[in-house]
């Protein structure tokens, strides 16, 4: 459910490069309540989006800067990030 506040979505590393976007703000779409819902919604944007998010084993997520599994809730005002498994250190 949207209360008017946007969701900020951020993309990192090869997701950012393949999707051609580092961040965006969207109105939370109807029916999108979790990370998994949001991924399904993003996949409908076109072939590049579908391909990237189809690699579910290699796409990780954070909600409000905390690692988040597919069932974690997404609410208006949240910041959601998608990225590959981390490779620092």
């Amino acid at each position: 459910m949207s209360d008017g506040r946007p969701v900020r979505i951020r993309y990192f590393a090869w997701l950012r490069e393949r999707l051609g976007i580092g961040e965006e703000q969207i109105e939370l779409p109807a029916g999108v309540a979790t990370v998994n819902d949001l991924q399904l919604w993003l996949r409908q944007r076109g072939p590049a989006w579908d391909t990237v998010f189809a690699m579910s084993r290699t796409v990780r997520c954070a909600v409000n800067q905390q690692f988040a599994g597919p069932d974690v809730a997404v609410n208006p005002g949240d910041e959601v990030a998608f990225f590959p498994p981390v490779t620092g250190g």
Partner: protein
Amino acid sequence: MADVRIAAAAFDVGSEFAALTQSRTDIGGVGCFVGTVRGAAGGRALVALTLEHYPEMTERALAAIAAEAERRWDLLGCRLVHRVGRMVPGDPIVLVLAASAHRQSALEATAFLIDWLKTRAPFWKKESFADGTETWVDARESDDEAAAQWGADQAAIC
């Protein structure tokens, strides 16, 4: 107590060690790990390594990792420094320091910190090769296994 920092410039191991230990007489041992950029990857010559990160999340993640180490071991000091941006072979990438009254805690905490840092902090490495190609480094299963040995709470990672 822990001191975590993201650095765009190279850090100096001696200065970091001094900052942790200066004027301290309670410390008996300091464990340290420094990760450095290698000049080759998969047999190909590397010219640069670029570290991308998720700025708002990174320091929070490092602080959480350090706090977990302090919860598990009786540390008298803990310091994490991680570079971001472009580095060349030989450059230091990451520094872990853990101080304790006794060596075993210091060394175990050091190993724990680098294992968790590799699997729980939002950094991504891109390799630039001498032939002009660039590749994002793949996560390694061996890193996940190393982190899991500490009883990592994998539920926190999606």
